[in-house]
């Protein structure tokens, strides 16, 4: 037997809230515009924040290695000071270490075929083993970087580098280079193009001595304990720090997002969005409640509890949140799509989307407090004088 759902099972509080909301369309539009403005602003700011956070750690995320040996006090991946190769040998002799590979980074001048120069950020590691290699290769191959004087560049920077594709040539430090691999989407938040090459070529392009490297990537032996090896290495090596990938990522992120103030600025923008949204929703909810004050007084007079009245107002706030968020999220996805190919893409993850919805609901419900306080101060006896 089919059991029919009772269409009247739901409280009228929702219906009343919905009717109150849609009764004054102009006010609804004003409220929704306020929420949309606020949430789009927050979406952009937080999307930039997460996008930036992701970009500043992208090299660490794509490096293979269980531990990083970095110069003591290095703030980020882009903050190199050369380490001596002796550290690599010392690390190789430690228990639990399977392999240690060097990574060389540094700025260099790229001379365009047509003349003129542009700065590039060179990254080099041993192309025949695990290390830090280009990813998202869309033309050529990583193996091709084993050929002397070859590099990999991202297609985003073709124009900046004056190249058109595979086989294009240019010069770095007066040494001829040929594009042997092309990647897609490896962009630098500093806007300086990344150039991947082999370890020895990177040393040559950046002027790094043959016995020096910026970092060493430690690959552990099977079943070796990361924490124990980290402690052993830290104890045996001097003037370096041994960090897990997660620790180095966090350090790099903290430096770029907070120590430089960039993240704080983005957070401030997001906070401003939340404040503006809360004030707009609070103001409109409050004035809507004032407009319906006789109805709330009548509700109170016929014996409704404070809880019931809270329900009506909070339903109104939640409806505002759902309508506002739906529109704001749609706009947000368009912005995400439009910035996907830019130097600093706005990131929208499922978690961020859920978080933004929760924030919208929180903002709208918080905004309802002023209205609730107003309603709870109503003297129900006012219905006799209205």
């Amino acid at each position, binding site marked *: 037997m089919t059991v029919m759902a009772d269409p009247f099972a739901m409280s009228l509080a929702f219906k009343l809230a919905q009717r109150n909301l849609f009764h004054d369309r102009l006010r609804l539009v004003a409220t929704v515009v306020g929420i949309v403005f606020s949430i789009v602003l927050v979406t952009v700011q937080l999307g930039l924040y997460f996008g930036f956070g992701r970009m500043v750690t992208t090299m660490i995320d794509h490096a293979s290695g269980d531990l990083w040996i970095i110069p003591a006090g290095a703030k980020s991946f882009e903050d190199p000071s050369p380490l001596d190769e002796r550290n690599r040998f010392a690390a190789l002799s430690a228990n639990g270490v399977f392999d240690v590979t060097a990574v060389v980074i540094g700025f260099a001048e790229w001379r365009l075929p047509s003349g003129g120069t542009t700065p590039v950020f060179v990254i080099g590691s041993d192309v025949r083993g695990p290390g830090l290699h280009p990813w998202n290769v869309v033309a050529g191959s990583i193996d091709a970087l084993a050929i002397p004087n070859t590099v990999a560049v991202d297609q985003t920077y073709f124009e900046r580098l004056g190249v058109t594709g595979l086989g294009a040539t240019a010069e770095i430090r007066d040494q001829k280079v040929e594009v042997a691999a092309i990647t897609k989407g490896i962009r630098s938040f500093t806007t300086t193009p990344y150039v991947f090459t082999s370890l020895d070529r990177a040393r040559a392009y950046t002027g790094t001595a043959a016995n020096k490297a910026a970092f060493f990537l430690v690959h552990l032996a099977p079943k070796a304990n990361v924490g124990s090896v980290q402690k052993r290495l830290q104890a045996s090596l001097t003037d370096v720090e041994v960090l897990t990938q997660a620790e180095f990522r966090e350090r790099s992120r903290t430096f770029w997002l907070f120590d430089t103030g960039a993240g704080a600025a983005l957070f401030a923008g997001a906070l401003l969005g939340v404040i503006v949204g809360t004030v707009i929703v609070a103001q409109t909810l409050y004035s809507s409640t004032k407009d319906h004050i006789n109805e709330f007084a009548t509700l109170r*007079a*016929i*014996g409704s*509890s404070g809880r019931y009245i809270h329900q009506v107002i909070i339903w109104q706030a939640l409806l505002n949140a759902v309508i506002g968020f739906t529109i704001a999220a749609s706009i947000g996805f368009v912005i995400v799509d439009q910035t996907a190919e830019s130097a600093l893409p706005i990131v929208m993850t499922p978690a961020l989307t859920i978080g933004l919805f929760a924030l919208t609901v929180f903002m709208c419900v918080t905004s309802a407090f002023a209205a609730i306080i107003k309603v709870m101060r109503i003297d129900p006896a006012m*219905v*006799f004088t*209205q």
Partner: protein
Amino acid sequence: MNIHSIAIQETTEAVLEATDVVKVLGSGAGEVRALKGVSLSLAPGELTLLMGPSGSGKTTLLSVLGCMMTPTQGSVRVCGHSTKEAGPEELAKLRRDHIGYVFQSYHLFPTLSALDNVRLALDVRGEHGRAAVARAKEALATVGLLHKLRSYPRQLSGGEQQRVAIARAIVGKASAILADEPTAALDSQNGHAIMEVLARIAEDPTRAVLVVTHDPRIVPFAKRIVRIEDGRIVGEERAQQGEERSSVEERDADDERGVVVKRKWMQR
């Protein structure tokens, strides 16, 4: 007993009972003693009119009896429950459980249909679903508006709106129906119809109906008239058993001597 109050003896258990009620409104220079020792009880099965000039304390008394206010002094009992020291939520519960209101300007929700306006009184009591809808329809049928259940207040005449308000007041099986000038905004025909509905409700032996009014045309519907002036009850008039409504007797009580004066009511 306060010398300004008149105790009105009832033979049946009172639905609402006020004893020596004093109500002070405002404070400081703006302080007003709106009620100055009022005692009144409402018995089920009768319609009582509360009459008096503007500013006499009618609405304040209605508010106190209807648990919208607590008295400054004295006591109010609603179906045996005292309102003394009751907070706003306790007062709301007493209203919800025992009292139905009918207001001069109806106070219907413009965005809800007649049916939903009536359902609302059940909804605030936590009664939803088909059973609540059936009861709301029954209440609308009682006031003769079942055919208008989907109409919105703006689509109803004043009289019809007031009948919806009465349906809302009675749907929760309230023991006391308190009506504030229910005919003031209506023409004589609609006013008469509303009073007929209220009088019929008052015939229910479980319900008391109190109507605050200025309107002398509705006097014939009352079993009892209480007069209030300057915050004191100054007279009570009661229809004699078996007497026609159009010719009932009035008794005025002198608050100091307790003398009952009888006089004929004027016919409408």
